């Protein structure tokens, strides 16, 4: 039985979001690597409604979270800690709550950022908001938690991954190549 448990753990670890073909190989068809990032709107915590296409001009880390997800919480802390390095590469962070938090109750994305981002909350290079249903479906059709896209200044998808808490070195490495 313990062998079965070990096998299950190994399988889950091997199929974690950072290792899944659906993300590592380029994300869903709607937001595939090298293709223009699909359009879709989101509402920032300051009440502005923006479209992803409006993010062109700067490399952007477009990150989708559920605010009740532990990985997203630790990822928020990691992003806050590395925000200066991302800014140094010209990358801004757009952290978006998945539409309606995947139908589950949880803190707002602003509360999440305040709790785990500390003093970096409100930084102009760190945009927080809530994704529309269309945007959520386009970038996260399987409802994964904690999935991100690194977009170049022309709005093309350059890197897809998950869990910034674990993959920040890879994000910084890719950001370096975009700057």
């Amino acid at each position, binding site marked *: 039985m313990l062998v079965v448990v070990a096998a299950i753990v190994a399988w*889950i670890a091997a*199929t974690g979001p950072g290792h899944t073909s659906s993300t590592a190989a380029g994300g869903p068809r709607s937001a595939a690597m090298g293709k223009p990032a699909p359009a879709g709107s989101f509402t920032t915590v300051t009440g502005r409604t923006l479209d992803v296409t409006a993010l062109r001009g700067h490399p952007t880390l477009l990150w989708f979270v559920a605010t009740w997800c532990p990985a*997203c919480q630790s990822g928020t802390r990691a992003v806050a800690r590395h925000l200066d390095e991302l800014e140094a590469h010209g990358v801004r962070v757009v952290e978006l709550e998945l539409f309606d938090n995947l139908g589950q109750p949880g803190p707002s994305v602003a509360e999440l950022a305040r709790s785990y981002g500390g003093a970096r909350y409100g930084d102009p290079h760190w945009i927080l908001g809530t994704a529309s249903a269309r945007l959520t479906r386009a970038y996260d059709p399987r409802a994964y938690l*904690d999935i991100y896209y690194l977009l170049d200044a022309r709005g093309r998808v350059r890197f897809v991954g998950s869990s910034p808490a*674990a993959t920040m070195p890879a994000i910084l490495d890719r950001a370096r190549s975009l700057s």
Partner: protein
Amino acid sequence: MRDAGLAAAGSESRPTRTRSPGLLTAVKLVLAPTWVRVLGVVLALGSVFGYSVLLTFPFTQRLSVANWRYLDAYRMGWAVVLGLALAAVLTLQIGATRRIASRGAGGTVTGVAVLGSLLPSLLCCTPVIPTLLALAGMSTIGVYGTAGALQRFFAVHEIYFMLGSLGLLLVSGWWALRRTATGCGSDGCSIPDPAPQARLGRRVPAGHGE
């Protein structure tokens, strides 16, 4: 169950089982060999290490010692408690199995306990649930609702899974000790009597020695 008295009746030199040791005595019996105690220490270190990495899995979704960055007092406490409990149960089970050469349901219960303690870590934030739902043919809307609910369930109710697992480990440990105390496995009773000479002539009828 075979009658212990009858089992010994055919051989005068073979000690007769006349009583069951208590659980504390069973612990002493199981831990008597040095190698069992060494094994217990090794298992404890390994289990605590394993739990410290696995219980922090949701934060990074990686199996790595880098997860220790997220090891707060709460998770460290659970890693120690569950790790020590698992090591104790495994040691007792191995020791008991060696003594009475039988296998019971304890191993399965332990496996379920370990799996239960890890379920929140492995399912709350990984793509396992959404992937399984999608493979099951659920629609996108259905996946969003169901996957969100299931993943949040594991994230929010982690404490109950931990407590349940700890309970199962305790049951599993008790079962291993009970097997040793009664000295009976699927193949009968074989605990040597500590003072057979003192009990000669005091054979106990079947069922009265328990």
